[in-house]
């Protein structure tokens, strides 16, 4: 049987991959992808804790479901914004974004 810790380690790994991506990538969309990784890793944790530690209850599952919903919402809005930015600036690199402040 797989130990709970293995799952946790896996999710942690995924989370930090996302973190690293968030730190280093310049492209807004890639940064968003990194955020998805982070959220995903958190979802795994919810599910794992629910299954292993509190199997009678369902909070973890529901939080995962809601989190997936929220992330979907967030992605939709974020992509809308990104498209808007792209439309204005023909570019979605982070370093160009300081122009937004000036306008």
């Amino acid at each position: 049987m797989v130990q709970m810790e293995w799952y946790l380690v896996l999710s942690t790994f995924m989370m930090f991959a996302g973190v690293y991506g968030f730190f280093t990538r310049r492209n807004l969309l890639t940064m968003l992808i990194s955020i998805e990784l982070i959220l995903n890793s958190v979802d795994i944790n919810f599910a794992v804790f629910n299954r292993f530690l509190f199997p009678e209850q369902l909070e973890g599952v529901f939080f995962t479901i809601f989190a997936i919903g929220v992330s979907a919402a967030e992605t939709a809005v974020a992509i809308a914004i990104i498209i808007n930015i792209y439309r204005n600036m023909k570019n979605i690199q982070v370093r160009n974004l300081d122009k937004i402040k000036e306008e």
Partner: protein
Amino acid sequence: MEYTLLLLILPLFSFLVLGLLGNYMKPKVAGFIGTLSLVGITIVSYFTAYNYFAAGRNADGVFPTLIPYNWEWLPFGKLSIDMGVMLDPISVMMLVVISTISLMVHIYSLGYMKGETGFQRYYAFISLFTMSMLGLVVATNIFQMYIFWELVGVSSYLLIGFYYTKPAAIAASKKAFIVTRFADLGFLIGILIYGFYVGTFSFTPDTARLISAGAMIPLALSLMFVGGAGKSAMFPLHIWLPDAMEGPTPVSALIHAATMVVAGVFLVARMFPLFIDFAPEVLPWIAYIGAFTALYAAAVACVQSDIKRVLAFSTISQIGFMMVALGVSTSIDPNNGGLGYMASMFHLFTHAMFKALLFLGAGSIIHAVHSNEMSAMGGLRRYMPVTHITFLIACLAIAGIWPLSGFFSKDEILAACFNFNPLMGWTMTAIAGMTAFYMFRLYYCIFWGKENKELHEAHTPKESPLSMTLPLIILAAITCVAGFIPFGKFVSSNGTAYHIHIDATTAAISLVVAVCSIALATLVYARSKQPIADTLATRFAGLHKAAYNRFYIDKVWIFITKQIIFRCISTPIAWFDKHIIDGFFNMCGKCTAYLSKKIKWLQDSHIQHYCIWFLAGTVLLTIILLIF
């Protein structure tokens, strides 16, 4: 004796009036007020002297020490500075000397200073000086003496710098003040030691305390002597006095010949009982310093060409005599080793008179020829008979010719020296001879010798007005008769009456030496051509030059002040302050600015970077939490 307070109030009052309102009154009025107050002071001091000595001796056969006034001025816990008036033989004697000379100078200045700008200021300053000097001599304790000592110093500073537009006068006044101040530092520390160990600033402390203080008393007294040496121009602190001649000549007569410069002698005399009983080992050193100073100054005086400089060095030399006389005293009993004290005071008295006369005479000459240099003079006897005669009397007196006053006092000094040590006696006799020589060199160069015809034709010298000659005549008269005053009856080391008897041998020796010296001077300088002097000057060119330059002592002092104090201490300190200390604080500021510039990139408005720091910080905190 309550009226003695007038001695301080009168001149203070005239100083305040002249100082504050002087600009609003005519010069003549100012001079009149000053002189009038001095007349008042003179009357009071003569009256005091008469009353004091007429009151007679007490049961112990001494004149009692009277303290009509003594107020606590500033208490320091157990100690306190008092202000008051104390009368004893020497202070009364000094009162007479100061008021006489000061009155003469006041009258003389009416003529001499006529038309000078700042006439009112001049009178204000000499009033201030008179007050301080009187306060000094009647001081009831050492601290009051110090206070007036400082005031005397400052009035001397103000008067030397009277012609404040002349750079030489400014430099001289500065030098005088700073050198004496330097010496006063010793005086002050001496007072502090004395006050602490003896528990009082008074002149008559508790004997038990003195004994228990042990070695501190000689130390304190020596330091006080340093102060006295500064004021009285003892070697090597004498350098200010010749320069102080930049002041108006009457001031030189009053301050730098008759009164202030003998304050050091007065100080030693005042502390004499303590010196004798608790620091007898210090006294010979005073004598040695005095003797060396006398010798040095006499040597320098022989070659100076500025007449006031000659007189200045002569003053230094004569004060050296007084110091020697005090120093050679070996006991409090005037009949047995304590003669010097009386001799010193006597010489102080007579010297004040004839030296003031000399200076006033010199002032009269300067007034006539408008120069201090001997080269501008010569042959003046025809133009200025009164000045000539009085000057001659003074020269004879200082040379020690019977029956003028200088003979008597110098004789006592020499007798005291012979008692102490024959070598000292012979040295002082030789110096007395030198005195006669340089004084007559001066005399001949002024009144006989080679006349500066061109100058005298362009501007014929004429006798000074009555206001100037009158003081000369009065002082000459005093000089003539002062020797016959039974001085020992009034002042002696233990207060008992001492009968002055002329020691025939000493008197004969000194007379012979004096006459020989005068003859020598006559031989060398009396003619209009002076071949011997020129030969000597060329033969011993190095020595002559050295003596003319006062053996380069001034150079040493300039080196010390300019090179050491300014160049080697002050400038580096200022540099240190500006660059190291200030630099350090500026560096702190710059480092802060630099650091903030360096870490500015942390705040680069990139969210990603903030996130990195956020994560790093969180991780760090977690690690810290895990560790502790």
